[in-house]
């Protein structure tokens, strides 16, 4: 029974954390974009525009729901929810602190990838269900991009698994304890390519979350608004929230795998604050990148994956194996 109460309280906390994140990451993005672009961003709705997400949320909820005439109704209705579910589910496995993890899974890492791929399927369904050519193309693009970048991402993750010998996220973090050079990014003793490997993983998570410069799924220039072109109101809101949820998860995963999770860089005071600090720094860098670069093309994206990321991650895998065997 205690276990149940613990789980329940975790769920409530997670929901609050998640809700705040999903709402205010949008605000961070708009505000950040504003300041990067020499303007102020949301400002007049509440102090510093802090009530902006609430206004947006309320408005989206009170919008009329239109199902386009040539949409596949059940699929159209299901897709936003299906996108949201795995994204939210994955929060269960993320270790925010040593003891602050809802459920320790011995296959946490694998679970991340498994549920992420479910999210891809729902984007496809949404794109198809809209009954719009743009959505269909964008959905197909988004998913094939996800599939393409899963390869280097998985390989890089496997490197980490080889180093730590575990798929348990908390265990992976635990092994990076001590000082900053124990973090996996700087584990040059395991493979000299580790920083590069971090970069590869970072780029992959950019692509997996469909962020600029890899936002093939919703590239405005070509495909109007991508796979959610036909979604209005809360359907669209859910897609946006799922995007931010995926963003948080991607950054958390990068933090856990490479930046030592809740471990502190100076060896003392490990705790969730470190985790959040690192995660939000990564999220900020996502925002920063989004408002700096133009978008690649679909072929540029596949090129990058096949020409650079996959070779690098493979070489890194081999090197790591070699290092572990030799030393």
């Amino acid at each position, binding site marked *: 029974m205690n276990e149940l109460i613990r789980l329940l309280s975790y769920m409530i906390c997670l929901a609050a954390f998640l809700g705040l994140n999903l709402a205010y990451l949008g605000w961070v993005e708009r505000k*950040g974009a504003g*300041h*990067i672009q*020499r303007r*102020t961003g949301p*400002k007049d709705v509440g102090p510093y525009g802090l009530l902006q997400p609430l206004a947006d949320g309320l408005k989206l909820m009170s919008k009329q729901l239109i199902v386009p005439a040539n949409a596949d109704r059940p699929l159209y209705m299901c897709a936003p929810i299906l996108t949201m579910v795995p994204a939210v589910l994955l929060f269960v496995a993320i270790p925010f602190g040593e003891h602050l993890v809802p459920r320790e899974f011995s296959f946490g890492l694998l679970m991340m990838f498994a549920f992420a791929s479910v999210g891809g399927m729902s984007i496809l369904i949404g794109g198809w269900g809209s009954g719009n050519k743009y959505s269909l193309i964008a959905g197909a693009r988004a998913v094939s991009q996800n599939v393409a970048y899963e390869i280097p991402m998985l390989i890089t993750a496997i490197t980490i698994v080889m180093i730590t010998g575990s798929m348990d996220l908390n265990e992976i973090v635990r092994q990076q304890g001590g000082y900053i050079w124990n973090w996996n990014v700087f584990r040059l003793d395991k493979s000299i390519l580790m920083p590069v490997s971090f970069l590869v993983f970072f780029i992959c998570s950019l692509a997996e979350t469909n962020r600029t410069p890899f936002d093939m799924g919703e590239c405005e220039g070509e495909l109007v608004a991508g796979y959610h072109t036909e979604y209005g109101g809360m359907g669209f809101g859910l897609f946006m929230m799922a995007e931010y949820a995926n963003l948080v998860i991607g950054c958390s995963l990068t933090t856990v795998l490479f930046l030592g999770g809740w471990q502190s860089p100076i060896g003392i005071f490990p705790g969730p604050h470190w985790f959040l600090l690192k995660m939000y720094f990564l999220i900020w860098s996502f925002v920063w990148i989004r408002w*700096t670069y133009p978008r690649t093309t679909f072929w540029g994206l596949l090129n990058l994956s096949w020409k650079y990321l996959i070779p690098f991650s493979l070489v890194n895998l081999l090197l790591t194996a070699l290092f572990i065997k030799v030393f």
Partner: protein
Amino acid sequence: MSGYFKDIITGLKSLAVGLQITNKEFLTKPITLLYPHESVKMYPRYRGHIELIKDPETGMNRCICCGMCEKGCPSGSITVKSEKRPGVKGKVLTAYILNFTTCSLCGQCVENCKPEAIRFSNEYNLASTRREDYIFNLLEKLHPEGIPEPEVDPELLKKELEKEEAAKKAAAAKKEAAAKQEAVKKEPAKEGGESKAEEKS
């Protein structure tokens, strides 16, 4: 192979440079002008919709109702209504209607205005929920508290009255002359003659 790595390095470097620039901009202060709270002053030449100029001496408009603005306007946005008042020199402007919704702010009217009676206003932030709000009567806009009556020049009035008298006499004489010919001519012709006389006065 070296080209491969060179590509990567130059590419990453270019990306880093971009990040640097945006970071610098992020840290500088935004240039946004917080419009409803603060605002810029318009340049003297700013072209808002046109308005009549209040003559500082007389407190009236300077329009002589020549209709040049009306004629010159490419899209026919201006309607000048005027009438002749007894004892006032020239015509008196009764309404200067500008349909701002068709105006293109080209300045033909201002340019064509000989007495410099109109100019561009500085109204730059018009917005309303009604379309009719933009059919301005510039005269009313000039005198929001009520259109003042033009001053009556007593001498001119006297002269005009005399003239009118003379005209009436002439008309009466004509009438008599016409009455003589009544046998020949018919009624409508007379009426037409009368209306012509009225128009002339």
